[in-house]
């Protein structure tokens, strides 16, 4: 049985797809057979970040509609043979994603894979809800700014009430915080929220802080997930995230300037 991870945020452009690609690659590199699914119908770019866009023949919706088998649609990653990608359709409309269809595909994949990573679209609409519905774990990707934190909080409410686990009264989805695009200088200068500010509102288990880094853009341009760039701080931070998720105890890095402007405005409570 696979463990299903949803990478979600509510707010757009915070780094969900970057994160999905990185952690899927990280898990695969550790020897776990992993598939990453793009739920962003109409805006696919997971395949770009993984550098397999020219090998897409069939997509997620083809599989749901029974027009292709899962094995026909899965693309094996060129850097790691334990990693597979199920791309989104760029052309079809979102209504083709149905709960029943998604459930069937996930059930099939569960038999073969250790981890299924679901890259959620932004928003709190159907696509995002379907991406999280079957999840066991949620990586809540948040940027250190108020609107992103608010949207994450909203998403956490949906995770705890609208998932299959919630509907079946099972143990709730395990929720983790991933603070991305963290810019220590801007936190120190008070332009951005600090980790403490974010945690005061969300209070979640912190899986890692991903620093703002130019290497993220160059990695996605090259089609190689940033986690494979061991020189990059963002790459190292993602490697830590995967290790922590798998149970290793590692100290948090890239975290200068924990207190942002909220704290300085109101002062700590202790």
């Amino acid at each position, binding site marked *: 049985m696979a463990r299903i991870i949803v990478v979600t945020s509510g707010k757009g452009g915070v780094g969900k797809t970057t994160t999905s690609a990185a952690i899927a690659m990280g898990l695969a590199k550790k020897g776990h057979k992993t598939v990453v699914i793009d739920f962003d119908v109409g805006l696919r770019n997971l395949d770009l970040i993984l550098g397999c866009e020219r090998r897409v023949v069939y997509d997620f919706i083809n599989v749901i509609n029974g027009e292709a088998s899962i094995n026909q649609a899965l693309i094996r990653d060129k850097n790691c043979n334990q990693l597979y990608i199920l791309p989104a359709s760029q052309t079809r409309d979102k209504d083709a994603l149905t709960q029943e269809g998604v459930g069937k595909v996930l059930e099939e994949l569960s038999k073969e894979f250790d981890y299924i990573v679901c890259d959620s679209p932004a928003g709190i609409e159907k696509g995002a809800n379907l991406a999280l519905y079957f999840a066991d774990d949620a990586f809540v990707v948040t940027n250190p700014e108020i609107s992103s934190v608010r949207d994450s*909080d909203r998403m956490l*409410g*949906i995770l*705890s009430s609208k998932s299959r686990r919630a509907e079946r009264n099972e143990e709730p989805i395990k929720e983790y915080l991933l603070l991305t695009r963290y810019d220590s200088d801007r936190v120190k200068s008070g332009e951005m929220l600090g980790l403490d500010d974010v945690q005061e509102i969300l*209070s979640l288990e912190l899986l890692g802080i991903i620093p703002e880094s130019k290497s993220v853009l160059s990695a996605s341009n090259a089609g190689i997930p940033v986690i494979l760039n061991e020189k990059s701080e963002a790459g190292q931070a993602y490697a830590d995230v995967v290790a922590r998720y798998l149970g290793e105890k590692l100290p948090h890095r890239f975290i200068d300037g924990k207190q942002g402007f909220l704290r300085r405005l109101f002062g700590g409570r202790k």
Partner: protein
Amino acid sequence: MLNTSPVLEFKSSTFFAPILILFKNDIAAIELALQEKVNLAPEFFKDSPLIIDLRELNKQNLDLDFIQIAGVLRNIGFFPVGIRGGNEQQNKQASSLFIPIDTAREQTNAGTTGEAQKPENTKPALSQPETTVIKELINPASAPPIYAAATLVTQPIRSGQRIYATGDLIIMSQVSAGAEIMAEGNIHVYNTLRGRALAGVHGNTDARIFCFDLQAELISIAGDYKTSEDLNKQIYKKPVQIYLQNHALIIKEIA
């Protein structure tokens, strides 16, 4: 082809709907009182089913046109789904609107919209006076009062989530900005309260709100409310209790 899959199935289940007890037949006053309630929690009341209880009116021989009141309720956004305690004429009118008539239960433990009821007329009791008082009012010879159980919530209430308790509401985790918690009784939050908290929503002016860390967007007791703008800086982020005194919300730090 043989197809044995069933076309339908009956299941026994309970369907919850609030009961609206009317004490006066002044339709304009009813409409105003209801609109005030709805404004407090528009999302909560939107498309809510409603059972209309006319027993009190008919006891006082106050006449009410059922078709007219049903129309008013629909306009506000309620769905009348039943009538109880109506007279022959009102029941006939309900039937003509395909609204079922509830004759089975002659007692009710339901709350009421506080506006139509004068607080001075009802003896304040200590913990859950609302249900008790109404019950006595309707049927003085009835069995001992039924207390609504307290609702305990241990997980965080996030933005966009809404909790409603028919009795007291006890929350152990944080309540996020953008969340809404409502109780017909008291509200206890043993954590940070950032969202909206409404106690005594059926008009119980004795209801109180207690919280460990007050950062609420809105607090309300029996319809009297304050927004975060009106909150005094002194009690911000402090443990407080909030209660009503002569229609004024009092916020006191718990030392």
